[in-house]
């Protein structure tokens, strides 16, 4: 058991290093999008934690807050998929079109959020 935990730890470290090195080679614009996704998810987690402390009374506000964070995260991931140059399925799609779609979808999402926020 001792040997396997050591190798597991080594494996974990090696994995971590390779992940890090592979990730650092992604272009900057994709890294910005990733940061935005992380920020949105983090905000959603904060909201859930707040609800756990304070209670979920205006439930529609809670739902709209959490779902807006999750929604923008999902849309940002979609944008990242479409803008990523390594993705062969989308090489015909100009990144401006992808961004315009992203903005449109966000507009609809936030319109609905504003309506549901109460």
């Amino acid at each position, binding site marked *: 058991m001792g040997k396997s935990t050591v190798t597991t730890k080594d494996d974990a470290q090696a994995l971590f290093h390779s992940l890090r090195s592979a990730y650092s080679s992604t272009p900057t614009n994709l890294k910005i999008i990733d940061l935005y996704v992380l920020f949105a998810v983090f905000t959603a987690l904060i909201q859930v934690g707040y609800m756990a402390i304070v209670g979920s009374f205006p439930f529609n506000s809670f739902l709209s807050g959490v779902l807006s964070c999750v929604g923008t995260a999902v849309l940002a991931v979609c944008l990242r*998929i479409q803008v990523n140059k390594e993705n062969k*399925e989308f090489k015909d799609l100009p990144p401006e079109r992808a961004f315009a779609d992203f903005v449109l979808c966000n507009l609809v999402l936030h319109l*609905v959020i504003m309506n549901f926020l109460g």
Partner: protein
Amino acid sequence: MAVPVDNLTKPTPASSTLRFAFGNVLAFFILLLIGVLAFSIRLFSVIKYESVIHEFDPYFNYRVTQFLTKNGIYDFWNWFDDRTWYPLGRVIGGTVYPGLTLTAGTIWKVLQSLNIPLSVETVCVFTAPVFSAFAAWATYLLTKEVKGTGAGLTAAVLLAMVPSYISRSVAGSYDNEAVAIFALIFTFYLYIKTLNTGSLFYATLNSIAYFYMVCSWGGYTFIINLIPMHVLLCIVTGRYSSRLYIAYAPLVVLGTLLAALVPVVGFNAVMTSEHFASFLVFIVIHVVALAYYIKGILSPKMFKVAATLVVSVGVVVCCAVVAVLVAVVASSPTKGWSGRSLSLLDPTYASKYIPIIASVSEHQPPTWPSYFMDLNVLAFLVPAGIIACFAPLSDASSFVILYLVMSVYFSGVMVRLMLVLAPAACIMSGIALSEAFDVFTRSIKFYISNLSEFLQTDAGDTLPGNNVSPQNEVLKNEKKEDTLKERPSRKNKKKEKENIEKPYVKSKTEKRPLVLPVEASFFALFLTVLLGGFYVVHSVWAAAEAYSAPSIVLTSHSHDGLHVFDDFREAYAWLSHNTEVDDKVASWWDYGYQTTAMANRTVIVDNNTWNNTHIATVGTAMSSPEKAGWEIFNSLDVKYVLVVFGGLVGYPSDDINKFLWMVRIGGGVFPHIKEPDYLRDGQYRIDSQATPTMLNSLMYKLSYFRFVETDGGKGYDRVRRTEIGKKYFKLTHFEEVFTTHHWMVRIYKLKPQKNRIRGKTKKSKSKTSPTTPRSGTVKKNPWH
């Protein structure tokens, strides 16, 4: 769509663009004609009867639309209706699916602003045919995404005429399904379009179309469960792609929010089990997406390490989450599902627990003949379509297959849901017919081109005509081209190598696609056209004869011409002219909507059937003896009781035939009503062998009061085909105020309480003043 027949006469670019242009214009005109066809085939009821709203539920929608057009949208959202479910009332804004009424209201408003003065009733009557034309066009778009233009046009024309859809969308059937089926097909089309193109724009449109579907019909849960199932299917069969993520993830988030916006759904969008599937698959697709992403950026060795680590940790986390979820779901008695969904999943559930759902005739399972009546030729074209979808299998065709299988299961549970099967069957049959036509016309073209070229190898070209194998092999050729293009995934590298080798081998032996012998293809073409002819004849017959009856007006043909039975409207008109505005009318729940809409009187129960106890109260009153029934009705402030009776003319859907359901529903809440008391040896009878409980019940008395006067003392009931049991009796607590011309509707008034009771002194009788409506006897309160 057609594969070029031979390589010798390649079309020039100019002629091919001209051909495409001509084809597109032709397709456009065909679509226009399909729309006109869909609209006109539904007009039989207007031609044969009149432009009137049919059945029961549409009257409620019509009343709501009238309110909307008169008072505006804010009052509509906040409307509390006190003229129904007296004394409880009903929150209309929060319990109605607003899509249909908002659509019709908007159309009316637009027409008014253009100075086209159509009445609200006309708009309501013709909404359904207009939207069925739209549904046919949506079917064209959907099938075009799956297979191509030819299949699209065929599917569209099949949907325009399929009897199952006609039955719920004739002119006058102003019900939710009229717009909901269009919304369903359009949502599916946008989903497939997003899946095929990977465009976020279509994903947004998809969410908005889904919102329209949620507004329109409770059957939206079908969409929000089918699409996750399809996503799961794609993931499991190795067809995950980033387009799938773009098609699904924004739909879940936006769709849940939009569904929560509709008041009738509200927080059910996140709290009921009907939606949990979408959330589960949402999590699954994120895990899968992450896995693919990490696989993409790591080397294979490191990925294996990552996989083992993740699996060991993830399994523990997964178990914990699943345990929590199961605990939460199991804590609710119905496991989070609503009653209607449970009755769909378990066909025996409704008859055991919710007799009201079980009693509706549309909720019964269909019989085999109804499949052929409603789908006709499509019933056996569907399997051919399934096979055609498998060659080649794409994301879109796998979706259509899944949609078909699911809708076949649900249509087997409830007759009403055959409507959901109809578009799937039309799409499949359209694909099958289109593929068949392809093969036949290709054979004929091939033969003609060979004939005109005098090739020496004529004799050996056409292979012996076996229907199935040439079609399969031709399609296999196409499939190989498609497989090389559509599946760049690394898993199938080995298969791809084989596939790449195969075309090289095949192309040496077969330069031309396989065709059938030309005589066989001419004959088969003729037979297929004949098949289409049969379908058209049947659909027109079904539309004209079977599904165009407005059921508020009945007709019958006899040797001396056409008899029209307009008794229902006669009764409602009498009520609206001869009673006070605030008078309450009690009847069985079937007639509630019509009474509020046409007679404009307050009713006790109506077709919404949301309160079982209230319905059971009315049922108990109808099943009790006259005095007990009077007391129950009096406690509800009822002034008039309305009973539908078909014994004189042979109208089979009258209250005596529905009486056993009243007993069952009443007995479900008030145990002193027992069904066996009303049956003699398990048989339901109203003749002289009927049980005394039956002969004394209020329903019997109200139906057959003075019935013997109609045929000189015999009292022969034409529906039950016997003479009635108790012929001469008087009513002590009710007085008859109106009976329609054919005795179909009978209205009784509650007699006011007597001032003093003659005869034997009752127990707690004291000098009561004439104004207190208290009976002298100890009041048996049936619901304590």
